[in-house]
Structure formats: structure tokens, C-alpha cells
């Protein structure tokens, strides 16, 4: 789609299509939920049969996802010990016909090394000419309300990268409406850290520019344009720049930039790719309430599973991409809240389907939602999930784009469109079907249904299904314990063991702090009510 990627088209017929597609996700979700409730009272036997079928589908899907969660976790564990700088040097050596390192002895690392050698071979064959010392990193950090204390750890982590930080351009994209304290904090950070990087720019985004909404994407785009001018003034080719857009609380591993550079160098078509790390929420995970911890870990698990499916991977939260692709695609949308996923769709349409997301098995850490009190945290979590679920706003824009694009194969359009729709509908409905609606036929059974074999068999079948699903829960608990950072010493053993028990909250949190916000977002979209961007409240104990 060469046109404007926006939920606010100018052409009347496009606006009509936009409204039609905006209604679809919410209508489907509500139809499912309300339809099942009505069917429970009208035809309880049919409803119970459908619920059994859904429960079985959900079990198999859960087991399927668990397999790939485990694989992803294992791969993440393997890559944790990878020396990315060494691999960059090997890549540079290959390009310069230099020596390649020997295979490691331990078999997990041998797998990783085997993939690396395949990448080396591919680089030699394709003649990819960029060297690691030619690469620049552009890191944009939008700031609206975040104080210095929230931003600084991320800057420190970038300043201490294995990849030379002198090749990192850091841009703090500051909203002009930010408070004086925030502005002062940003200025202090610039003074303190500028010398560590190629440069540390503070770009102040004016408020109320035409065509913009008060969204992070507008701020990031404004900063990216400034960065483009910066690179252009120094004759730096955009093809050699990797752009990353991080949340203000993002803290990266010391090898993140090196890992990113490696994936950039080994990607066959690097200027048509985004690079997605695994987001974790470990900055304050031990201070966050239990339900917040479970939710954030679940979000990480979801991204880990998605990483095993690069064909359908979509960028999320803090991510990276080719700066050339970003510029050619027209930067992030300036009137959409879900800029992180929207940029993928925008690029996909801009490049007629020739765009991909490369999963990176490296983590970057952000803050878990923790707003001081339980109630405030619940509210903040709800709003955050609703904002995430607002990614459904991409659906109508993407569908219109697919309508107009004649170059993307229809099978690919169908797959992408279906997955986008199914993901959001499932997000909003599955938890309700499993935890609430699934029990209605038994509770409101009329005499006819309550004297059927099915009435007595269904609980047993459901019990077996949920029992088997607990296997996935156990695996999730084990993996979560492995994924979490070491707890502070001051926490007693009992509390740390309680971390495992927290996962019993899954039915509650999945329903009220995941599915409900998703349904809320879809309903708003369906009713034409836009959402204002609200910066999620996060606090961090010293």
C-alpha cells in the first residue's frame, strides 16, 4: 500500500471500509460470548457440546504452544552463553576471508555454533558486504512522564555494551508537554552520558502537529527524522544503521547490540527486516504484586512462543529494525497507539509483502507494572493490557491495505489477516469461555438437559481436559522460575516458593486482567471510541 497507513483515511469510501473492519473483531468476540450464553439457555446440550469441543481445542493448542515454549526457552538458554562479539569478528573474518572459530564441545552450544556456521556460509555465498565496524546503532527512547530514575538504568546498560558504544547514537525523544522535572532529568542524563556514545541527542517533540495524535509513535517518528538528518549530515548510509525504539524503562544485556548487529549482518535481506528480542519484565519483578508478575511472565512466554514462528512474527514493544526500512516505510504511524506492531504492518504493505521479523533469542528487560498499592497496580495493569490489546486497531488498516495491494499473494494476505483477527478474538474470548461460560450449562440446566448422560459426562471430560492442561501449567511454573532473575537476598525461602503458587492465579488474571481489557479495547474500536495513550505507571524501589 503506497498510501497513508492510518486509521483516519481521507477518502470517504476508505472511511466506510475502515469502520466496517473496525467493527469486525468486536462483533465476532461479542457474538461468541453472547451467543454461547444464549445457546446455554436455549439449547444447553448444544452449548455443552461446543464447550467440550472448545476445551479440547484449547488443550491441544496449549500443549502445542508449550512444546514451542520449551524449545524457545532452551534456545534462549543456549544463546545466553554465546559470545556475540566473537561471532561478529568471525563474520568480519569471513568477509575478509579470515579464520573461523572451532566448534564448541558441549552439545547445546554446538547447535548454536552449527547455526552460526550456516550463517557464515550463507554470508560467503551471498557476498554480504557490511562489516560490523560499519554498523551504527540508533536507539530512540521516547520520554513523556518518565523520571531520570526510570530512564537512567537503560542508558547505563547501553553505555556498557560489548558493541562499541561510540557507534551508538542515542536519541531521547522528549515530549514538549513533559513536566519541567522530566525535562530537567533528561538534560542531566544528556550531560552525564553524552560522552559515552556517538552522540546523545535530546529531540523535543512539539505538541499538536497536524495529523498527529498524542501517541508515542509521533514522538519517535519526530526523533527518527532528526536522527536521519544527523546521519545524512555525516554521510552515514541508512543501510548501515539499525534503529531500535525502546521504552523508557528498557534495560538491555551487555551483548544486545552485538547480538542485534550479528542478526543484522546475517539477515539475507537486512533492509527489509525487523528484529524482535524477547521482552522480559525483570527490572522490578520482585517488587511487583503476584498477579502482575504472572501476567508479565505470561507476556514473555507468549513472545517466546511467537519467536518460534517467524513467518507470522509481528514486532512488539521494544524492538529493532533496519533504519533504511524505517525511512522507506515512512517511519512509525503518528496517529496510532500501537506503533510497535503497526510499523511491521506498514512496512509489510509498503514493501509488498517483502518484509519479515527476525526473532532474536536475547532478552531485554522492562519494568513490571507496580503502582504502589494493589488497587492502583490493578488499574495500571488493566490499562496497560488494554493498550496492548488496542493493537486490534491494526486490523482495519491492514485489511484496507490488503484490499488495495495487488502484489502480496492472496494466500499470504489470508494467513496474516486470519492470524491477526484470530489472535485478538481469542485473546478476548478464550478466558471467558473457559472460566465462566463453560460452567453455565451445568448451572442453568433445565430438567431435560440435567437428565441426560451428557450432563454427567461433561464435568468428567472437562475435568480430564483441565487436568491435562495442568501439565502445561507445571511446565510454565518451572520455566518461569528459570527465567526469573535471582531474587533479592532479603526475601525468605517461603516467599520465593510462593512464586510457584502464584500461577494458580492464572484463571483470574487471564479473565479479568487480560481478556477483559482485550474485550474492552475491541468494544471501543467497534463503537468508534478512540483511546488516548496513557503512560503506564511504574515505580521502582531502590
Amino acid at each position, binding site marked *: 500500500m503506497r498510501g497513508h497507513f492510518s486509521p483516519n483515511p481521507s477518502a470517504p469510501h476508505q472511511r466506510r471500509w475502515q469502520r466496517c473492519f473496525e467493527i469486525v473483531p468486536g462483533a465476532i468476540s461479542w457474538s461468541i460470548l453472547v451467543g454461547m450464553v444464549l445457546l446455554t439457555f436455549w439449547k444447553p446440550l448444544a452449548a455443552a*457440546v461446543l464447550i467440550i469441543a472448545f476445551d479440547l481445542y484449547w488443550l491441544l493448542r496449549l500443549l502445542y504452544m508449550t512444546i514451542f515454549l520449551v524449545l524457545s526457552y532452551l534456545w534462549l538458554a543456549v544463546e545466553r552463553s554465546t559470545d556475540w562479539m566473537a561471532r561478529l569478528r568471525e563474520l568480519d573474518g569471513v568477509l575478509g576471508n579470515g579464520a573461523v572459530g572451532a566448534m564448541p564441545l558441549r552439545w547445546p552450544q554446538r547447535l548454536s555454533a552449527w547455526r552460526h556456521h550456516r550463517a557464515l556460509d550463507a554470508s560467503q555465498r551471498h557476498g554480504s558486504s557490511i562489516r560490523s565496524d560499519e554498523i551504527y546503532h540508533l536507539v530512540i527512547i521516547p520520554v513523556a512522564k518518565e523520571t531520570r530514575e526510570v530512564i537512567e538504568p537503560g542508558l547505563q546498560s547501553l553505555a556498557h555494551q560489548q558493541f562499541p558504544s561510540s557507534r551508538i547514537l542515542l536519541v531521547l525523544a522528549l515530549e514538549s508537554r513533559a513536566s519541567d522535572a522530566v525535562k530537567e532529568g533528561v538534560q542531566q542524563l544528556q550531560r552525564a552520558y553524552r560522552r559515552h556514545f556517538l552522540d546523545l541527542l535530546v529531540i523535543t517533540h512539539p505538541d499538536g502537529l497536524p495529523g498527529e495524535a498524542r501517541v508515542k509513535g509521533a514522538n519517535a517518528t519526530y526523533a527518527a527524522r532528526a536522527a536521519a538528518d544527523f546521519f545524512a549530515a555525516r554521510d552515514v548510509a541508512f543501510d548501515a544503521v539499525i534503529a531500535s525504539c525502546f521504552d523508557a524503562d528498557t534495560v538491555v544485556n551487555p551483548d544486545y547490540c552485538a547480538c542485534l548487529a550479528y542478526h543484522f549482518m546475517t539477515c539475507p535481506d537486512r533492509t527489509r527486516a525487523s528484529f524482535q528480542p524477547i521482552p522480559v519484565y525483570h527490572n522490578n519483578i520482585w517488587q511487583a504484586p503476584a498477579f502482575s508478575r504472572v501476567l508479565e511472565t505470561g507476556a514473555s512466554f507468549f513472545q517466546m512462543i511467537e519467536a518460534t514462528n517467524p513467518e507470522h512474527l509481528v514486532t512488539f514493544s521494544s524492538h529493532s529494525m533496519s533504519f533504511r526500512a524505517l525511512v522507506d516505510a515512512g517511519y512509525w504511524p503518528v496517529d496510532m497507539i500501537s506503533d510497535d506492531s503497526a510499523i511491521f504492518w506498514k512496512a509489510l504493505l509498503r514493501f509488498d509483502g517483502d518484509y519479515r521479523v527476525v526473532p532474536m533469542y536475547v532478552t531485554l528487560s522492562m519494568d513490571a507494572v507496580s503502582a504502589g498499592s494493589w488497587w492502583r497496580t490493578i488499574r495500571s495493569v488493566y490499562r496497560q493490557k488494554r493498550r496492548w490489546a488496542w493493537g486490534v486497531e491494526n486490523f482495519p488498516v491492514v485489511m484496507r491495505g490488503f484490499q488495495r495491494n495487488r502484489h502480496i499473494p492472496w494466500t499470504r494476505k489470508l494467513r496474516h489477516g486470519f492470524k491477526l483477527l484470530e489472535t485478538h478474538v481469542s485473546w478476548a474470548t478464550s478466558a471467558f469461555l473457559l472460566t465462566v461460560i463453560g460452567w453455565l450449562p451445568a448451572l442453568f440446566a433445565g430438567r*431435560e438437559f440435567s437428565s441426560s448422560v451428557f450432563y454427567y459426562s461433561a464435568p468428567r471430560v472437562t475435568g480430564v481436559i483441565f487436568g491435562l492442561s495442568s501439565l502445561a501449567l507445571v511446565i510454565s511454573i518451572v520455566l518461569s522460575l528459570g527465567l526469573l532473575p535471582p531474587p533479592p537476598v532479603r526475601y525468605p525461602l517461603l516467599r520465593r516458593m510462593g512464586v510457584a503458587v502464584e500461577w494458580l492465579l492464572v484463571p483470574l488474571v487471564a479473565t479479568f486482567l487480560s481478556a477483559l481489557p482485550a474485550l474492552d479495547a475491541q468494544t471501543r474500536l467497534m463503537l468508534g471510541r478512540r483511546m488516548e495513550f496513557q503512560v503506564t505507571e511504574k515505580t521502582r524501589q531502590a
Partner: protein
Amino acid sequence: MILLRRFFFGVFVAAYLVLCPLTILYALGYLVRPGMERGIVKTGLVYLATTPSGATVYLGQKRYTGTTPAVLRGLLPGEYSVRLVLKHYRPWAGMVRVVAERATVLDRVLLLPESRSPEVVVAEPSDEIVSLGEGEALLLVRGSRLEDVACYHRVEGGSQPLPLPDASWREARVMSWTLVPGSDAAIARARDTSGSIRYLRIRLRGRQLQADDLSSFFVGRRPDRIAWDLDDADRLFILQDGVLDRVDLMAKAIYPRMAERVLGYGCADGAVYVLTDDYLIRRFDRDGTEKARYFLDQPLQVLLAGRSDGWRIVRVSDDLFLLWGESGELFVTRPPYRLADAGIEGVEPDVKRERVAFWRGEEVGVLDVVASGRHAERDDADTDMTVRWWPDAGESIEQLAWVYDGSHILLRQRDRVALMALVGPEQPEWRELLRVRRGSRVEYVEASGLVYYLDERLGRLCAWPLVVRSEASIAPLLRWPEEVVERARGREL
């Protein structure tokens, strides 16, 4: 990874396509049996729940693992003998019919103890008991005079004399008691030492008894019948010579001629239903305002014509009434209209479940309002009624009570008390429970599951635990029934 993903996706899709229909068929009661026609048979199941739970289940000669509450699955349609055995309890046996795709539910099986000692709650002997409230208090009649009547409160315990308004009541001799089952009041019609007929209302207020002299409301009257609504003992409806008067005890007022040409009436559900000689049943609210009319069908009018008045109207449901005549006729306002021409000695409604039990001599009958059609839900189908008779229920039945949420019937035949289950075996048995003082009533209290009676020999007030309430309070499906499998292979599986 992509290939691996596609491989597993295919495996799971195939697994779902195979498992889903199999699971649903299993849940519907279809089982695959080699050798049977088409390999698939329709089965039914039996759900058993006993009070108390934990009984061993025998189906035919085969013993099943697990105990009640239990679900016996995979049963071919047909008749099965079921036996439930629990230590220290009498075995329970019956025949059950299994229907394909249906569940035969026996969820109110009462196991009776082999021996259970009653608790003597009042040692002093009595001749009769009169219940106030739903067994909250019992009046113990020990003689013909009012001063011979004591009161036992279930919570307070012990027996206390009646709080008579003044000393003149002490020597008054009770001629009859007017009761409304479940009401917290009873009216004694007594003759004092001067020969005057007086009326005393005994009412239970909380844990206290209150006695009110109602004689002033009956000056110059000899009512044919007095009745009141279960929940409002302050409004009386008095029938005399075909005229129905309303008495408001709180306002101390009589409202004469609420209805005239009255053939009969009854109180239920906050209303008064009056049958007049134009063969209308008129519904009045407690304030005497006519709210609705129900026209009796022509055939019923023909049945009623020429018969005496004095009918009692028993409300079964919103549009179904029983008419119980003084001669024991029993008619219903829907075909077949006639239930009994004569001899019905008692009628006991089960208001919650919209059914009525009645008896005469040795027979017991139950009228039940049910949904018509096997596959219709209650709300969207025409309701219908069924009448069942048990011709050999006992000898000289004098009292009948609904027991254990309406799942059983308690019968008193002179001095014997027996129990029968309504749900379950096709041919239920009567199980003798107790021997009681001849002619004295028994009172079953649903809340506690106790049967209060006067013991046969000494006339002491005793309480016998019929239903162990801690076990019975759990709804069947909220407690996970054990899946029971046969210990030995057999035809049923």
C-alpha cells in the same frame, strides 16, 4: 523450526479431528463395542447419591469400586437391580431402568440406620402434638384442658406451659384445633367452665409464644371453617353459611361478606381462592380485593353440580387447583378432572415443587405438574400433570408428610410410621421407621431432618434423625461424584 512447527501443527490438527468427535460421542453416551452393530452402542448412566454418602454400589451381582455419590456409566439400556450397602445402615435395594442417552438419577436415596436411638426431648408424657411454624415449636397436648397444653421449642428445649391470657382459660376444654401446615399460629376452639365457646390463638413469635383471645371476633358465630394464609396469621378468613368474612386481627376489624354464595375456599401464596356457586374461582388478595377469576371447565362444573359445599381449594400451581370436598371428593381443574369420587381423607401440598399428595384408606396418590414431552424444557412447553397411585401403601393412613426436599413421603398409619421414596425404583417400597403413640401426629422438620413424635409406650416427645442434614446439604453436582467401575467384567459394560 518452521518445519518442526508445521509438523506439530499437523499432528495436533489430526489429533483434534480424531479426539473431538470421539470425546463428544463418549460424553453423549456412545461407546464403541466390537461385535455390536456398527460398533457403536448408545448407553445410559445411573447417578446415585445417598444420605449419608459412602455406600457401596452393587449393580446386579457385580460390585463397583468407589462409593456414593457415584456415576455408573456405559450401561446398556434395560432394567438393573441396584443395591446400596453401608455399614450400620439398612441395605437399600431397587430396580432402575436405564434409557439410552439419558441419566437415571437417584440423588435422594435415604439410607436408614439399622438401629438409631431416638432422643427423648420431653420426658413428660403427652397425648398429641401440634406443630407451629415448620416445626419450630410443638404444642404438647396432655389433656383436654388448655392448662394441660405445654410448648416445646426446638431451639430452647424443655417444655413450658402456655401463656394463657388469664386464669379463666386454664379450665377451658379444647374442642378442636385449627391449623394451617407451616403456619406459626394455631387456633384452639374451647369451651370454658360457663359453657361458652371461646377462641384462643397461640402464635409463635421468635422464641416466645403469644396467646390472643379471639373470642370477640366470633360473637354470635359458629364458623364452618377458619383459615389463613401461611405467612399472615393476622388475617383470618371465616366461612359460615356460604358467606366469607375477613377478620383483621391487627386492626381489630371484621370485614363481613368479602364473598357470598361461597362453596369453598383456600388460602395460598398470599391470596384467597374462593369457589362460588357460579363455578368461578375468584382470587382475592389479603385485603379482600378481587384480583382474578378462573373459569371452571364445563365437565368440572357438571361434576360439582349437586354436590354439597364445604370445598377446600388447594392451589397446586398458578392455574391448577384441587377441590377437596367434605365427602372426600377430589377434583382437579384440568382433565381428567375427577381424581376421586369419595373417601379422600387428607391432602398435603408440596408448594415448592407444585405437587400434592392425598390419601384414602390404604391408597396414596400424588399429583405432579410436569413439562409435557420428553424433550421440551419447562418454560417453552405446555405444562401437564401426572397422577400416580399406590394402592397398597398401608392400612388406615392418618397422616402424610413430604420429606427430604419432597423426595420421600412419610406416612403414619395409626401407630406406625413408614417412608417411601418417590424418585427411584419403579416400584418403591415402604420402609417402616417407627412406632408412635396411637392417634398422635408426627412432625418432620426439614431444616433439621428430625422426626418428632410421641413414643408408643410412654408418650414422651422424641426426636428421631431421619435425614443427616450435614450430608444432605451438599447439592449433588457440586460434590464430585466418584466414577465407579465394575470390579468384574459383565454385560453392563
